[in-house]
């Protein structure tokens, strides 16, 4: 099949949607499909051969955070050209109501269009204002996918209609085979836990973890907290106060180091306070064999099957988080049971399974003929 995939977010910076798009493209190519990925990319950024640039990206506020998006007449022209020259059997757009390349492609094409909704957060006020623009374009989508039950609920509540759930893909085997690193492994009396995420972003929950440190250290004086992620080290130490000595700030880590880190530590802590539609990193930690302790966000609760696959703690509650971590560290048998159950359950997120489901969706809509440029979209021509 000839498949055109559009990512609205710039590939210059890493992100959940970008990672999913590039991973899916790789899997589809390995499966013998012909794939072209269109995304905003600045000149000079190294990208895989099957990526086509939709032009440079601009950082703009949208839907509650700042995103690097591509829009404007020049991008629109590139998108139209890509659609016209691609002769695709299926077009797969990600986050189609983001003002970027996906939306432009939606207007530029007719035929089988699949759209994946990643976000579980849509601002209803902004959406209401944009409804006359958004609804007609959404009608062009033949099949909707949501990456989680929470993302699906958002689609149902805000946009009407429905979506099928196909989760984000994870390379389960890569994490399962990751080498452990002695420096990151816990020792008797000195267990290790890992935190991943940008330190300054409040919803990643580093602050909650910092406040949980006193109780954690009271139970395990030798505890080490390995922190991977971008951010101001001095500010992080200040947050931890007298317990800063327990922190080991690793800074941003490579994908391989992340896998090794998750494979080495006794527990992975996810104290996020919101904004998570799925929780890929939880699945990665489960694949690597770390026991997961996460805040009880709806999406995390679903990934952890309400506590069967990992411990859950009340959102934004340092005392509850400390108790949940202690509960995992102090009961080796329970820890082993959680890890074993999690290892079996993550198979359903493996790329092989996810790709098969996505291809089933492609095949279902591809009956409707091939993708063609929409002649009517010419009236949007401004450049």
């Amino acid at each position, binding site marked *: 099949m000839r498949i055109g995939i559009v990512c609205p977010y710039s590939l210059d910076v890493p992100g959940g949607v970008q990672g999913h798009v590039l991973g899916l493209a790789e899997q589809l190519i390995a499966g013998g499909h012909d794939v072209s990925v269109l995304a905003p990319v600045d000149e000079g950024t190294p990208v895989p051969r099957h990526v086509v640039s939709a032009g440079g990206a601009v950082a703009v506020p949208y839907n509650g955070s700042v995103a690097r998006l591509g829009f404007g007449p020049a991008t629109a022209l590139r998108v139209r050209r890509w659609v016209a020259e691609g002769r695709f059997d299926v077009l797969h757009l990600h986050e189609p109501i983001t003002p970027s390349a996906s939306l432009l492609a939606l207007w530029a094409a*007719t035929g089988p269009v699949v759209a994946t909704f990643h976000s579980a957060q849509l601002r209803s006020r902004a959406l209401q204002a944009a409804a006359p623009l958004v609804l*007609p374009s*959404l*009608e*062009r989508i*033949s*099949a*909707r996918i949501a990456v989680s*039950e929470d993302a*699906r609920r958002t689609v*149902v509540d805000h946009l*009407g*209609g*429905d979506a*099928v*759930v*196909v989760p984000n893909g994870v390379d389960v085997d890569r994490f399962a085979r990751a080498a452990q690193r002695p420096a990151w492994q816990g020792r008797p009396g000195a267990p290790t836990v890992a935190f991943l995420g940008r330190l300054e972003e409040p919803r990643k929950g580093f602050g909650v973890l910092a406040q949980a440190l006193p109780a954690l250290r009271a139970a395990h004086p030798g505890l080490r907290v390995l922190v991977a992620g971008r951010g101001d080290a001095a500010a992080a130490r200040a947050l931890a106060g007298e317990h800063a000595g327990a922190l080991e700030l690793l800074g941003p880590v490579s994908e391989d180091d992340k896998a090794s880190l998750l494979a080495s530590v006794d527990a992975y802590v996810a104290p996020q306070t919101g904004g998570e539609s799925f929780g890929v990193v939880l699945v990665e930690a489960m694949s690597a064999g770390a026991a997961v302790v996460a805040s009880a966000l709806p999406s995390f609760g679903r990934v952890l099957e309400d506590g069967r696959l990992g411990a859950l703690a009340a959102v934004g509650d340092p005392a509850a988080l400390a108790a949940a971590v202690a509960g995992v560290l102090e009961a080796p048998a329970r820890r082993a049971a959680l890890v074993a159950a999690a290892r079996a359950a993550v*198979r*359903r997120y493996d790329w092989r*399974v996810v790709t*098969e*489901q996505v291809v*089933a*969706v492609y*095949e*279902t*809509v591809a*009956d*409707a*003929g091939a993708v063609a440029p929409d002649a*009517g979209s010419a009236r949007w021509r401004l450049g």
Partner: protein
Amino acid sequence: MSAPVVALLVVAVLLVLAAVVWALTATAARLDRLHHRVETSRASLDARLLRRASAAEQLALSGLLDPASALLLASAAGEALGAEGEAERSGAESDLTRALRAALPPATVAALRRGPTGTRLLDDLDAACQRAVLARRFANDAVAQTVRVRRTRVVRWGRLAGHAALPRSFDADDEPPALAAEHVLPRPGGPR
């Protein structure tokens, strides 16, 4: 009325007319696209349902099932393949789904998967069931969106839908039994 006022009025009327014509044309194009989507997705659904029924029939006639299960499955598949009219089809498809669940409990699926022919037939049936579920979801989505647009005032007052009948969703129980070797079924959440 002086000449400039008349001229202004004429211009204003013309502008309003142009706007009305533009709105009507745009909505007509939108509706046309939706009707097309309803047709193609419905054709796809019909094809997927036939494919599912014939996969069930093949399994029934393979000689791998006990005669009673085979008869149950074969007759349900036959009914689905031969059903005519919306109501009859929807009933027959739901019956086929129930027959599949009844004839293929986990123990039977495990036994069938021990042989190459059984594995192939089950894989085939599983893929067909998955795709029928997806096709019905997408077809009904197209219907729901079309109905929503056809209920708008512009469409009703402008009679933009012409004589096209209001499309209807296809309701059936299509939740298949677990046929896969591992967990690879799509998980269309929520009520169906």
